[in-house]
């Protein structure tokens, strides 16, 4: 077995040193009745593993062999080969959480840089080292808010928040005595400010709004901030397509207390939906309630700049059931990928990616809008994703197009059974005009 570096002679010597006669003796503490060998096939060689998994991989349509317009929380953006190949380095790939700073400065400094990038993009003060993904990041933002506004039990969520985020919130809240109020979107596709404000009361600890929202519509962060602050609640800005942060007014400027969500689109491949990259940023005043790991700058014994994990008294390994979160392992390597990506793109590149995505989405929208039988239901401006409504049921049409190499969009019926005509179309800098024209032609045919 190629992963086991113990020769037979070594094993014999080791057993002798331990003073037992067989390895089995070391398992004496396990009751014999439960020692049952698994019924698995014999070991597979590397060649066979490549055939087996390569075969499974080849059954899937993917972004490199299709005209690709899927989004709804996971986006197909450009990732440089530098970011991709850097992750192969054993020093990044095979190290643990940087508990020992003297031999983990690489990881620590990278996290510190990641925290900085997130702060700059969101215009917030403090960001953590990552969370699992967008939905649990929202949960953590809500729970953090609840701790900061003690005694209130209700969270108000715009229905423009990704449905799987909202479902996750309900899962987490169900046994904590916390309540969720969802405020439906207006007919224009945006959160209605009056309706949102009306849903907030003195039992509300947080108001969360997503922008671009799940239908791709750009929300004004102030809608949520004003509704929250009017009643002393925390305001949470949710982001599921983080590329938008480079073009749209950031939540920090609008006065949000917490910005959180999904940063996959900043340097992380789609990975069939995971690993993704949750993030959470907040104000300095609230930093002691932030969940997850934090890296801080400090000095070493010689007075040189160094980095280490800090404020760990918030965390489960010290505070146990009183911790700010139960999270331990986070998404370290994805935060590194994103740090590399954001560093490469920087000020201009992130903006250009966002601007191109938007312009191409607008082109796509305008192409579809002119096809007889097809409409763009939401009147409000969108960023790089938008709902379309067609003359035929969406899911079967999308299946047909997929067979022809066009992954045209995500049907809203997935989360809303009754809505069988609408689907979301996402466009990024990776889409060519030719692909968009092909999509439009295919939809025109379907009409």
């Amino acid at each position: 077995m190629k992963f086991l570096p113990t020769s037979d002679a070594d094993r014999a010597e080791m057993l002798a040193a331990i003073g037992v006669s067989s390895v089995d003796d070391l398992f004496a503490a396990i009751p014999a009745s439960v020692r049952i060998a698994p019924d698995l096939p014999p070991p597979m060689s590397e060649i066979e593993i490549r055939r087996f998994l390569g075969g499974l991989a080849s059954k899937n349509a993917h972004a490199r062999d299709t005209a690709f317009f899927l989004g709804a929380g996971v986006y197909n953006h450009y990732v440089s080969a530098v970011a991709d190949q850097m992750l192969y380095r054993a020093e990044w790939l095979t190290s643990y959480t940087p508990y020992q700073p003297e031999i983990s400065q690489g990881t620590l400094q990278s996290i510190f840089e990641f925290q900085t990038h997130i702060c700059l993009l969101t215009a917030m003060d403090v960001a953590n080292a990552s969370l699992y993904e967008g939905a649990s990041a929202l949960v953590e933002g809500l729970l953090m808010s609840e701790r900061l506004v003690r005694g209130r039990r209700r969270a108000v969520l715009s229905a423009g928040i990704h449905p799987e985020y909202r479902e996750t919130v309900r899962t987490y809240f169900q046994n904590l005595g916390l309540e969720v109020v969802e405020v439906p979107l207006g007919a224009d596709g945006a959160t209605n400010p009056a309706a949102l404000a009306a849903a907030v009361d003195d039992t509300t600890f947080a108001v969360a709004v997503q922008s671009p929202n799940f239908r791709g519509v750009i929300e004004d962060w102030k809608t949520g901030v004003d509704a929250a602050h009017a009643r002393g609640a925390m305001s949470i800005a949710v982001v599921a397509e983080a590329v938008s942060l480079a073009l749209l007014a950031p939540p920090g400027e609008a006065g949000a207390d917490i910005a959180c969500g999904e940063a996959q689109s900043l340097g992380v491949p789609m990975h069939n939906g995971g690993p993704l990259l949750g993030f959470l940023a907040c104000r300095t005043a609230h930093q002691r309630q932030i969940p997850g790991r934090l890296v801080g700058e400090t000095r070493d014994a010689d007075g040189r700049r160094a980095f280490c994990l800090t404020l760990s008294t918030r965390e489960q390994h010290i505070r146990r059931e009183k911790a700010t979160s139960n999270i331990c392992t986070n998404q370290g390597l994805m935060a590194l990928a994103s740090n590399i990506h954001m560093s490469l793109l920087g000020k201009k590149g992130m903006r250009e990616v966002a601007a191109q995505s938007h312009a191409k989405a607008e082109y796509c929208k305008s192409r579809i809008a002119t096809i007889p039988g097809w409409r763009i239901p939401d009147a409000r401006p969108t960023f790089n994703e938008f709902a379309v409504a067609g003359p035929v049921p969406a899911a079967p049409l999308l299946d047909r197009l997929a067979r022809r190499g066009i992954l045209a969009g995500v049907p809203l019926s997935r989360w809303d059974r009754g809505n069988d005509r609408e689907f979301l179309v996402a466009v990024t800098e990776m889409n060519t005009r030719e692909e968009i024209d092909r999509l439009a032609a295919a939809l025109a045919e379907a009409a």
Partner: protein
Amino acid sequence: MSVDLENETEKAAPGKPLGDRLHPEPRHEPLVFERSGAGKVGYSLPALDVPAVSAIPAELLRTEIEGETEISEVEVARHFTRLSRLNFSIDENLYPLGSCTMKHNPRTNEEMARLPGFAASHPLAPEIVSQGTLELAWNLEQALKELTGLSRVTLQPAAGAQGELAGMLMVRAALTRSGNPRRTVLIPDSAHGTNPASAHFAGYRVKELKSNARGTLDLHVLEEAMTEDVAGLMLTVPNTLGIFESQILEIAEIVHAKGGYLYCDGANFNSFVGVAKPGAMGIDVMHMNLHKTFSTPHGGGGPGSGPVAVAERLVPFLPRPTIERRPDGTFTLDFDRPESIGRLRTFLGNYGMFVRALAYIAAYGNRIGEVARGAVLNANYIRAGLAGLYHLKYDAPTMHEVVFSDRKQAEHGVHNGDIGKRLMDYGFHPPTISFPLIVHGALMIEPTETEGKSGLDAFVAAMRAIAAEVESDPQIVLTAPHTTPVRRVDEVGAARNLVLRWKPQAGNDGSRDRK
């Protein structure tokens, strides 16, 4: 360095510390922001092939991202290569971080996870063009079922802690359906911090159970605590002392007798995977850390993956969706699970880790018990090598890890943290020192099965040398490490004077490197 030179250079530049004279290069790497400079770029994009339209009202737009980088690809590649070299990794040497299972990460698995059919696939693509991704996940569930001896598995949790929460939410849902969710969860004092934290977020109060003198759970302590208000017991098997609860069957009986559920923290599954089945032990629900037992890389702190296996009676409550095989052999997601606890995150989970874990299980197949056998052998070998020199609070049989303490060394003023730092000078990562909390000054050593005898011998020799230094030369240990990229880091100062990010200031954006 040779003694001659020391004298020589001392003569030539008196007063200047020798190290500074010999090693003039600052080992410090500036922040990526400090390497920025106006006009540099690190990316390239195609020219826009559609009209450069913006349909966004001005008030919704931002201005430039102040402080963001302007830097070339060359510099970024070098920056991250240099940073990486400041890290210790498994591929450098033994990484005996107890409870973390720092084992070799097979590179085939990396290759497989990066196939475009996995890495560039989208979780919301139509099922008819996603049969490969579904089949793989289904296969992984089957393998984990077989290894745990339990009925079904959810792959959704993103890491062990989220798996714990998922598991406890299922317990709670089952109890709720039976009429009473109950209020308390029992957790031994040796448990990892995520256990109480997860129980808390599942809405439970935690009652801590004191371990006995053998480091395990006393049946009468459990019996006393296990009332009908107790939802269940969260037990780490083997526990964080590396000790297997040999009365596991009796423990299960006691818990079940009171209508409770036995939760197994499977972080230590590496010590018995393929050797024994948790299902047979009476365990009802168990999370696994794919990034431990199943060798998906730790990545400097994740991503992980924390599948949860459950007994039949918890199946209805599994997170949504489940992955099902239809009679015709095709695969589909089942969202129609009315009793499900719901979802814990978006999509199917950390899918990239599923690919790696399945590749790993496939490579071992029915010989996967050798993993556990190797891990247990190695831990016992280290125990034998260090017994007597380091204090062993609990001398029950060791499974995959052994927890010594610094009691002997503390007499010389040297603590577990110091010993760990000194190990760095010998080329090793320190053991876990922050827990288990019931061993004061713990040195929790988990070598894993992917370490050979020569590496273990070198580690034992280093630990023995340090024990000797503690007596002859404690100062060298107390001021360690001496050979690392930075010297001992001021963690207290970091928490006292919080600097959690770089801030753009006039002049420091792209200006010269900070010292």
